């Protein structure tokens, strides 16, 4: 597959919702160590709403899928993290307007717009122990690969490594920043969510399905 349409985008959101939902308790446990213990519940509820809202749309175009996801994350997660995850999708909406499909380069640009939005919104840099530590390497790996199939696999692996790398960091953003050195030894829950999101897409990509 070399082009993605609205149906595939919808499928990606549904896959993310399923994957994140399956790991809800693990994500809550990660957040209990570093924050207020609600990340799994908030993000999985919001993704569920996104998937349901998209399913309810009549013949949605690509931007509508991305906008519905953005809104569900922004409005259902609440607080700063809802705004940050929501922004990732919101920043892609205008790029998807009037389009029927995306090639890999355009997909790369879509993801990059999201990352730029996240960094602009939350002011986090790589190494601050946030979801950026998973997102940034994932996008680099995605861009460097030759086709969609390889790109999703590389992105999923990079996001997973990125999430793992947060274990050794002290936090400079989010609630965990008040913990100082005590944050070391725990994976950032937002970074883990990003890893699960890419894993979900990779796992449902036609050529990559086992």
């Amino acid at each position, binding site marked *: 597959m070399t082009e993605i349409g609205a149906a595939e985008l919808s499928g990606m959101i549904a896959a993310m919702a399923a994957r994140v939902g399956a790991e809800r308790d693990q994500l809550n446990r990660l957040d209990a160590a570093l924050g207020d213990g609600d990340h799994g519940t908030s993000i999985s509820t919001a993704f569920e709403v996104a998937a349901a809202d998209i399913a309810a749309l009549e013949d949605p175009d690509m931007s509508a899928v991305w906008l519905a996801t953005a809104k569900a994350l922004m409005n259902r997660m609440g607080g*700063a993290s809802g705004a940050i995850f929501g922004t990732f999708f919101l920043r892609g909406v205008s790029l998807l307007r009037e389009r029927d499909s995306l090639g890999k380069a355009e997909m790369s640009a879509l993801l990059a717009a999201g990352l730029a939005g996240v960094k602009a919104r939350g002011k986090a840099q790589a190494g601050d122990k946030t979801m950026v530590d998973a997102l940034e390497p994932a996008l680099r790996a995605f861009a460097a690969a030759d086709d969609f199939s390889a790109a999703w696999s590389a992105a999923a692996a990079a996001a997973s490594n990125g999430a793992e790398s947060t274990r050794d960091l002290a936090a400079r953003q989010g609630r965990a920043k008040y913990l100082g050195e005590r944050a070391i030894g725990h994976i950032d829950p937002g970074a883990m969510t990003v890893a699960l999101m890419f894993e979900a897409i990779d796992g449902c990509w036609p050529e990559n399905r086992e």
Partner: protein
Amino acid sequence: MAPRLHKLINRPEDLVDEMLEGFCAAYADIARCGGDRLVMRAQPKAIGKVGLVMGSGSGHEPAMLGWVGEGLFDVVVAGEVFAAPGPENMLAGIRAADRGGGALVCVSHHAGDRLNAELALELCEIEGIENVEMVLLYDDISSAPKGREAERRGTAGLFFVWKMLGAYCEGDVSLASAKALAEKVRDNTRSLAVSLSSCASPVTGQAMFEMGADEMEIGMGLHGEKGMGRQKALSANETIDLMLPLLLEDLPYRAGDEVLVLLNNSGSLTLMELFILYRHAAARLAEAGIDVYRCWIGPYATTLETAGFALALCRVDEQLKALWDAPANGAYMKQL
């Protein structure tokens, strides 16, 4: 000293909606519930005037509900306890506040409030809603050093902005000048809070943070966030003598200045204590040659039932004094 864990509520998940219903039932002549957790004026402002809207986590009552009304805000959007409302609700608030003269979104500076307001503004752009501006408000000197004012948190001193900006936007003014007025008041305002106790979340029934019986936190945020540090609790006069010099030197306020003073009750301080604190603050201000134009003492922006208070100053000129004295009729802010 453990905070009170049992709250007189029903189901925690209903508390924000039930609170809004109760508020709007009580003050139907002033405010009404507009859906999407909006509280708006019972009688909207005249067409063409600048509308004022603000999102606010719950748990600070009477802020911001009590500030909806003539001479004050047009719309307040309520969030969950200590959490900013999401951007769609903010967007609904902006639509409701806009009477054709544009809308000014006032943001009390916290990550969640700022990010959600920014998102709401992006939604406005996407939906083609024009003439919306955002102004970032901050006042708490304990949250970032002098010179980095824009990193500071918004706390009880925004009281001054709310009142004067509300009065200003009753006139025929532009959106840009409304924003400039808000910044002018903000830039003349400084606050510092102390607390003697924690509070308990009505949602979880757990204490929000820990505090010893004889401790005092200097520089508490409006949600109990840490400030300059803990120390042994002081007497009233000692507390003022610790706080006031920090405030005075920050702006700085100088001999000959005229100021408004707010002593904001964080929740469960007694008014008796606040009057005793005010007595000494007034004496020290007089010694410094600073003139108190008016003062307000009471619970205006609370942190649930925290025992503590904020001292806030706002330097005023003739314009601001007139705006201060202009009539206002919110449920919890009345100026005759």
